[in-house]
């Protein structure tokens, strides 16, 4: 019996404008057996998505199949006519895209969309499909499976939507699932629940799957076999056990090295006495901020409540929390983009005007903001030299040859060729753009850099390179950093101090080592436990532990009284935690935890 899917010496080329063919996939062969999950792993541009899509007989526009075969149960689907392929898509091979939010139609109910493909293909009748969908909701651990189908996509959370995508793909009982980075955009706590659901449903259904990702630790949890790709070529191919535990190829080792180790004590850089303990470079004091205008100058929606953070000169303060916890809002308050309704922001001991336009140019110069998405943060109509030249001219008043020299210095500082000055942003890769983005902030010669999720959109290796660069820049320039991320491992590898935000409040803060070692705030503990580890079987262990289960599948609720983490906390004290604000426990070395539970109980 032939394997379910056999990719045989597959070659895919891109046709350039001049009509030349540029190879994108260079003779890749692998197979997928029934009931098996094969992971395609590699960085962006490695051709992993292109290969995965070929199992649907599809290429993106501008690409063409130029050799090899893709056989589904022995039949080469590349030579099939389009209407046969169309019938096969969604029925025998189903595709799960990266962003569930972009895939669901907001105007249709979830049930209609989940059952649509199965009904269209005539695999199931409407009522059969609905029954099947309900079964799948239950298998995927979704809340209220009987009535979920009648809700609309905006009424469920992002993680739930991602699992509903799996239900959509599985509804018509396809032979093969193609999952394209299905957890990349998710928080660690959400990722773990989605992974668990995928894994159990794949096992339960006996479906085969191709799992595309750049994250080796995720692959270790879910795949049976791994195909490591680089530049359209297979570098290593073997079982998960082999590849993870005994990697043979250099590139695999490099990928593994780029995986940041799970956060643990002892990773943070030692605090050196080199930087004098004078007034902190930047300090926020009892900040309350939010959006909209409510009564009496209070914001309509409060996002941050009574937040205190201070950034010592030359230090890196990591701000961490799930999406929606207010970490970007904190950066916007610091930058002056969002005036706080209460509290103040101090720069070297002097209070800054809350509004951007009231701040002087010198004050603006000292606090620079690095935006998350380099793609949108660089003006596509300006060349790199103009993008970098403007802040130099604006803040430092340099012109002509001096300005050019400084631009070249900056490009060298972020390890880009000087020749890039004459390029447009779209002529750079994602990682290169992020470097320009950093260089622009550095051009102002700032004292504090606010980095908002600067590596979240980059893949592992590129992201690791940017972190290395940040470390070097910090040594060279002595700039203080506020480093915002939802990825605890990244923060742990770079920050001196960590601030853990939950629902707009600081639940724990202190030096990296003390935050990452017990006693923990229960939320910090959940975050640490949710970071995937690069070993087989981690997912099962993590799911079994109490800490991880606590955080699964609850939305973040902003509360006025009591501890915001109450309804997710495994050690909550009913009657106390939901009624009274948690007391602040100071544990020395600037380590602060806000929790009702005592020292011994939280660890």
């Amino acid at each position, binding site marked *: 019996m032939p394997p379910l899917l056999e990719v045989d010496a597959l070659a895919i080329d891109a046709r350039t404008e001049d009509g030349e063919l540029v190879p994108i996939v260079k003779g890749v062969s692998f197979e997928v057996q029934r009931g098996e999950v094969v992971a395609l792993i590699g960085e962006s541009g490695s051709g992993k998505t292109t290969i995965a899509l070929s199992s649907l007989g599809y290429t993106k526009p*501008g690409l063409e199949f130029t050799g090899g075969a893709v056989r589904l149960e022995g039949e080469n689907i590349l030579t099939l006519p389009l209407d046969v392929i169309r019938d096969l898509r969604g029925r025998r091979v189903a595709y799960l895209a990266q962003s569930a939010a972009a895939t669901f139609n907001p105007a249709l109910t979830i049930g209609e969309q989940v059952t649509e493909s199965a009904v269209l293909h005539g695999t199931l009748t409407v009522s059969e499909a609905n029954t099947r969908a309900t079964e799948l909701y239950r298998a995927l651990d979704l809340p209220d499976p009987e009535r979920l189908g009648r809700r609309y996509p905006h009424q469920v959370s992002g993680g739930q939507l991602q699992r509903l995508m799996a239900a959509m793909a599985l509804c018509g009982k396809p032979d093969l699932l193609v999952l394209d980075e299905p957890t990349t955009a998710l928080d660690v706590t959400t990722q773990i629940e989605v992974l668990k659901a995928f894994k159990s449903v794949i096992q339960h259904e006996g479906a085969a799957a191709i799992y595309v990702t750049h994250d080796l630790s995720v692959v270790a949890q879910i795949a049976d076999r791994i195909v490591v790709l680089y530049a359209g070529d297979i570098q290593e191919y073997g079982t998960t056990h082999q590849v993870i535990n005994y990697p043979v190829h250099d*590139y695999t080792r*490099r990928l593994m090295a780029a995986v940041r180790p799970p956060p643990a004590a002892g990773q943070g850089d030692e605090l050196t006495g080199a930087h004098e303990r004078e007034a902190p470079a930047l300090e926020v004091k009892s900040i309350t901020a939010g959006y909209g205008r409510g009564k009496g100058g209070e914001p309509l929606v409060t996002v941050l409540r009574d937040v205190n953070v201070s950034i010592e000169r030359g230090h890196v303060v990591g701000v961490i929390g799930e999406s929606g916890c207010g970490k970007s809002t904190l950066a916007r308050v610091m930058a*002056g983009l969002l005036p706080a309704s209460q509290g103040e922001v101090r720069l070297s001991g002097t209070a800054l005007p809350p509004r951007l336009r009231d701040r002087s140019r010198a004050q603006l110069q000292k606090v620079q*903001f690095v*935006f998350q998405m380099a793609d949108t943060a660089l003006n596509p109509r300006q060349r790199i030299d103009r993008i970098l030249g403007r802040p130099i001219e604006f803040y430092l008043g340099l012109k002509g040859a001096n300005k050019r020299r400084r631009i070249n210095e900056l490009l060298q500082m972020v390890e880009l060729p000087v020749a890039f000055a004459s390029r447009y942003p779209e002529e750079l890769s994602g990682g290169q753009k992020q470097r320009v983005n950093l260089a622009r902030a550095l051009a102002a010669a700032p004292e504090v850099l606010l980095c908002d999720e600067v590596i979240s959109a980059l893949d592992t290796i590129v992201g690791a390179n940017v972190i290395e660069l940040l470390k070097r820049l910090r040594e060279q320039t002595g700039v203080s950093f506020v480093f915002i991320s939802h990825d605890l491992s990244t923060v742990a590898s770079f920050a001196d101090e960590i601030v853990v935000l939950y629902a707009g409040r600081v639940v724990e803060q202190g030096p990296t080592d003390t935050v990452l070692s017990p006693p923990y705030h229960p939320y910090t503990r959940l975050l640490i436990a949710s970071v995937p580890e690069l070993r087989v079987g981690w997912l099962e262990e993590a799911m079994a532990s109490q800490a991880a289960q606590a955080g699964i599948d609850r939305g973040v609720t902003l509360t006025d009284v009591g501890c915001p983490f109450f309804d997710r906390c495994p050690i909550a004290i009913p009657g106390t935690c939901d009624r009274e604000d948690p007391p602040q426990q100071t544990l020395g070395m600037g380590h602060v935890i806000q929790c009702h539970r005592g020292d011994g109980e939280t660890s």
Partner: protein
Amino acid sequence: MSDAHAPKPPAYNELPDAPPRRRIQLTWPGKVGIAVVGFWMIIVFTAPFIAPYHEADILDEALFIVPGSDEKYPETDFQSPSKVAYLGTDYLGRDLLSRILYGARVTIGISLAATFIAYLVGITLGIAAAVGGGKLDSALSRFNDAFLSIPSIMLALVVIAAIGSTIPILIVLTGLIYATSVFRIARSLGLDVMVSDFVEAARVRGEGLWWIITREILPNIAMPMATDFGLRFVYVILFISSLSFLGLGVQPPTSDWGSMVRENLAGLPYGSIAPLVPALAIGTLTVAINLIVDDVSAHSGGRLARRMI
């Protein structure tokens, strides 16, 4: 598997994903468009020098006397093309070719001026609404909606009936009427760019509003606005031609393609080409502009599509 690759350890650099920026390359329909538009632009500047007669000249009967014929008073109107009048004559016996050549200046000149006014007013107010936001945006947008809801030809009829039809009035009126649609496009494009991170970055830097508008916003809406400019120009030509056709646009004896169609309609039953030639002129110009616009937008659209891959 990996052994096959062992001999040459590749350098694992970040894989490039950005091909060199594409410059504008016109396809042949675009080139045809440019040739035709270029032709008409040359006519605009050289009409008085190359036209055989003046636009208002009624040709002398003597010119039409066929040698050897004894007819003293030949008909001069709606004559077929001949060596005297290469494209024949119109309903008053004027040379059609000269009127087409002179008419090009009026038609294209008025339309261009009106489109510029539409753009000046529309972009200024549209960007003001996008940047100002809040009450300014609401006020401008509602006013614009009210203006848009009046059928443009009706509005023009009323205004012209009230204050008369001169060329400056025609230009300003058409400009204002078309400013409403430019306003909408400029505002929505402006709003898109306003919320982008690079504008926010400029604001954090402390840049002034003027700098943000001229350096960050305008360059980013220029391409779609330029595409729209071509289309809008065509609409303006058609609008002014229709006004002239109704007798409210350019007044005689000044020639204008739209009014030329109308005044020569009576020639159709006689098989005269007089109403067809100006119609053809309007047709070539508008189609040519559209060919260019299509090419330019396909080019920018192609880049968009490529970015999505």
